């Protein structure tokens, strides 16, 4: 089936089997391997992408269901020039070690802070509770997201 959607700001069209989930479509068809796949049944959260502004698990969504949507992956959150405030905060607080969960952490945090730039630590922990990390113990991740809030408040005003 032909499916067309906007991916990181650019239109894409791809022929997929209906059973292909969005994560496999992004990785194998569109070659954006920043989105990771851990469990493939909606438990680990590392495949989180942003669809029409909402953080969703791309293993729990068919590629054909993305028709007409705006999809943002972890690649869409970075720029070639400099680290974004979220990336800077992750680096400063050592919010990643092996990095496997990081794409899901970044996309989830970005969607959350875009909607709720005033999210407190409890809210951040709650939103990240669907993302498993086996390295960090989560504390540095929460600290990084807390620090990144300032940048989202600014962009909110502009």
């Amino acid at each position, binding site marked *: *089936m032909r499916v067309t959607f906007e991916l990181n700001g650019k239109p894409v069209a791809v022929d997929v*089997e*209906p*059973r292909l*989930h969005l994560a*496999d479509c992004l990785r194998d068809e569109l070659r954006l391997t920043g989105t990771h796949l851990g*469990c*493939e*049944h*909606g438990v680990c*959260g590392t495949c*989180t992408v942003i669809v029409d502004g*909402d*953080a*969703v*698990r791309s*293993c*729990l*969504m*068919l590629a*054909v*269901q993305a*028709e007409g949507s705006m999809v943002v992956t972890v690649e869409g959150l970075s720029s070639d020039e400099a680290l974004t405030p979220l990336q800077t905060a992750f680096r400063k607080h050592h919010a990643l070690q092996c990095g496997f969960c990081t794409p899901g952490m970044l996309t*989830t945090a970005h969607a*959350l802070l875009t909607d709720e730039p005033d999210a407190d630590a409890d809210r951040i922990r*709650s*939103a*990240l*509770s*669907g993302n498993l990390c086996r390295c960090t113990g989560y504390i540095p991740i929460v600290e990084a997201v807390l620090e990144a809030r300032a940048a989202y408040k600014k962009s909110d005003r502009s």
Partner: protein
Amino acid sequence: MKPSPFEYRAPATLREAVDLLASDPEATVIAGGQSLMPVLAFRLAAPSLLVDLRRVPGLGDIVIGGSGVRLGARVRWRDIEDDARLGVAHPLLREAVAHVAHYQIRNRGTVGGSLAHADPAAELPGIAVTCDAEITLVGAAGARTIAAGEFFTGALSTLREPDEIITELHLPSWSADRRWAFREFAQRQGDFALAGIALFYDEDRHGRVRDAHVGVIGACQRPHRLPEVETVLNGHPVGEGLIREAAAIAAQVVDPPDDLHAGAAYRRALVATLVERGLRAAAQAGGA
């Protein structure tokens, strides 16, 4: 972890969706897919056709009126969380939905999907049963409305026919001074509850319980009310003695599963504790 092959259609009308379902006995409905996609990934189901409701108009509305709250089948958990009107129109619903799964799943999971999937630990079926809600379905033979108390027939089993699509959940109107609580226990945030309790009651002018509703999830094959507990509450003011009596009865009357997540005796004890905590919270704060 890859689903078996299937065909996919996203019809533009409910009629078309029903016709597609009726034309193929192996067809299945998908909306948010947050329960169905794992089922497909594990190949626990291998439908020949998925009928996606994403283009069907009119299923995404939350309508609040004199007769209560009407939730369209495609209303997401996120929509319920974001609708501030529900804080007054149905605080119990909102509190229960806050316990559904994780942030990302709440952005796609739907009312209709949860009702159709009928997991015994799912929050919304428990709220529907506890609140005497009605579920509307549309099929090839037309529309029908079923009381939630009858709709759920067992674990992952309902009265929905294969060619029927759930279109709406109707929760009867909520009175402002009602006392209520929702409590569940899960091993990790977002996990399915090992046991959960939804309860509400009104009070007469002497502070005695009137029209108690107490429902259980998780520690059961299907969500159901606990009439024995309701009977012991009705007509009495809620005090520590009554709370303990109600909790003890709740533990006796539930029939929890004994599985690798928790033993039956443990789930019974959880039910008693949750009833106790729920009643205490309802009596003290009028809810939460």
